[in-house]
C-alpha cells in the first residue's frame, strides 16, 4: 500500500501518440504551470475534438439508415425528434467512453500488467486472467440473449424437454460453459505472451479443432457455437484486456509489444466455439 513508486511510466514512450492530445494538457503542463483559465480551455478543446470524432464515427450509420428509410423503403422517419435526441445521446456517450478509455481502462490494464510482472507470481497472474475472462463474460447481456435462444433451439431439436425449467437450466449451463472458455482463453493467451510463442500455430490449431468438432457435433448447436465466439468480448473488456496484453509484452524482457501484445481477444473468440461444440456433443449426444 505504502510503497507507491514515483510514477514509473513503463509504457515505452508510445503514449505520446494517442496521448498528445490528452496527457500533455491534463497532467503535466497545465496543472503546474498554467492557470485555471488555461486548464479550462484545454479541457474544453479536448472534449470538442472528441465530440467531433464521435460525430464523424456515427456519420455512416446515420447515412445508411436515412438512405434506406427514405430512398429504398420510401417511408418517412417515424418520430424524428426521438431519433435526433437518440443520436445526440450516442455521440456524447461515445465521446465520454473514449475519454474514459484513455483515463482509466488503458492505464489500469498497463499498471496491472506492470504490477503482476513486478510481483513475479505466475499463479497470481493466471488466476487474474481466468477471473477477468470468466467474470466479464458470465454477466454479459449479449451472451444471456444468445444462451436463451440456444436453449430454444435445443428444445426444438429435442435435446432437452421443452419445459421452462429444463430450458433455463440449459441456458445457464451454456452461459457457464462460455464463461469458463473465455477464462481459459485468457490463461492460454497470457501464458503465450510470457513464453513468446507465435500465435498462428495456436489459433490455426484451434481452427482445425473447430472444423473437426463441427463434423461430429449435432448440427443444431453449430450456429450457436460459431456465434458465441463473437458475443463474448464486450466493450469494456476489450480495452482492458488489450492494455493488459500489451502491458505484459512491454514489461517482459525479450517480448515485442506489437507481436506478442495482441492476440488475447483472438483466443477469447476461439475457445467458446470449441467449448460450446463439446458441450453440444455432451448434452445432445444422449
Amino acid at each position, binding site marked *: 500500500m505504502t510503497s507507491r513508486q514515483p510514477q514509473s511510466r513503463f509504457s515505452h514512450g508510445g503514449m505520446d501518440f494517442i496521448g498528445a492530445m490528452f496527457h500533455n494538457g491534463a497532467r503535466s503542463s497545465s496543472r503546474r504551470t498554467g492557470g485555471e483559465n488555461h486548464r479550462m480551455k484545454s479541457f474544453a478543446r479536448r472534449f470538442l475534438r472528441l465530440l467531433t470524432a464521435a460525430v464523424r464515427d456515427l456519420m455512416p*450509420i446515420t447515412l445508411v439508415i436515412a438512405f434506406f428509410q427514405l430512398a429504398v423503403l420510401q417511408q418517412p422517419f417515424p418520430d424524428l425528434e426521438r431519433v*435526433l435526441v437518440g443520436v445526440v445521446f450516442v455521440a456524447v456517450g461515445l465521446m465520454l467512453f473514449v475519454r474514459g478509455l484513455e483515463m*482509466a481502462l488503458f492505464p489500469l490494464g498497463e499498471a496491472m500488467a506492470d504490477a503482476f510482472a513486478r510481483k513475479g507470481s505466475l499463479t497470481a497472474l493466471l488466476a487474474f486472467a481466468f477471473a477477468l475472462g470468466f467474470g466479464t463474460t458470465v454477466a454479459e447481456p449479449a451472451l444471456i440473449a444468445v444462451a436463451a435462444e440456444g436453449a430454444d433451439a435445443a428444445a426444438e431439436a429435442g435435446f432437452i424437454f421443452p419445459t421452462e425449467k429444463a430450458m433455463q437450466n440449459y441456458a445457464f449451463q451454456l452461459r457457464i460453459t462460455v464463461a469458463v472458455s473465455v477464462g481459459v482463453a485468457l490463461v492460454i493467451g497470457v501464458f503465450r505472451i510470457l513464453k513468446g510463442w*507465435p500465435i498462428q500455430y495456436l489459433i490455426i490449431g484451434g481452427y482445425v479443432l473447430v472444423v473437426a468438432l463441427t463434423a461430429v457435433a449435432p448440427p443444431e448447436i453449430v450456429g450457436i457455437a460459431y456465434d458465441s465466439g463473437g458475443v463474448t468480448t464486450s466493450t469494456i473488456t476489450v480495452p482492458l484486456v488489450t492494455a493488459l496484453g500489451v502491458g505484459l509484452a512491454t514489461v517482459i524482457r525479450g517480448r515485442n509489444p*506489437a507481436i506478442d501484445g495482441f492476440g488475447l481477444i483472438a483466443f477469447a473468440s476461439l475457445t467458446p466455439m470449441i467449448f460450446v461444440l463439446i458441450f453440444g456433443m455432451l448434452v445432445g449426444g444422449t
Partner: protein
Amino acid sequence: MEIVDHTLSTLSATLLDVAPIIAILFVFQTFVLRRRPPNLRRIVIGFVYVVIGLGLFLIGLEEALFPIGRTMAAQLTAPRFIGAVSGSGYGWSDYLWIYVFAFAIGFATTIAEPALIAVSLKAKEVSGGAIGVLGLRLAVAFGVAVGVALGAFRIVTGTSLPMYIVAGYVVVILQTWRASKVIVPLAYDSGGVTTSTVTVPVVTALGLGLAATIPGRSPLIDGFGLIAFASVFPIMSVLGYASLTAWFRRSRERSEREKKP
C-alpha cells in the same frame, strides 16, 4: 419522463455490467498486488466516464437506431417489399437490396464500434504510428460488410454454414502464411473485436428476420451464423490490407530506386 426512466434503468444496467470487472480488479489490487495503481483518482474518474458514456451510448442506440434498424431489416425481408421489386416467385437475386443493406449496415455499425476504436488506438500506439487508426478501422469495417452480405446470401440460399466458415479459415491460414509477423495477432484480434455493442443487435435482427420470412428456413437454425461471418472476414481484410500496403511500399521504393541513378 419516459426517457428519464429509460436513462436511469440503462445506467444502472451498465453499472451492473461493470460491477464484476470492478470487483475483480479491486480484489486483485487489494489482496494480491497490495499496491495502489498510480493516478488512482484519475482512473476512478475515467471509470465514471466509461460507465456514463457507455450508458448514454446504449440509450441513444435503443432510442434511435436499433428500432429503425430492426424495422428496416423486417421490412426489407418482408415478401411485400421483395414482391414489389420483382413480381412473384423469388430466387436469390430478388434479395438484392438485402445484400446492399447487409453490406452497408455491417460497415456502418463497425465504424461506430467503441471496442474497435480502443484496439486501433492501441495498435497505433504500439506500432509507433505505422498502423493508422482510420486505416485499420476501415479495413475491419470492409471485412464485416463483406462477411454480413455473404452471410445474408447464405441464409437466402440455404447453403451450409460450416462450409463457408471452413473455407474462410482456409483462406485465413493461407494469408497468415504469407503475411508479416507483426500484423497477424492484430488481425486475429480484430475478428473478435468487431462484434460488440452496435453490430450484434442489428445484425442478429437481420439474420432472424431473413430466416423468418424466407420459406423453408427456421430462425432457430438458419438465423444464427451472421456473427460468425462478421468475425472471420475482418481477419482476411486486415491481413489483405497489410499485404496491400506492404506491396505498395515496396513498389514505391523500387520506383524511387530506379529513378535515382
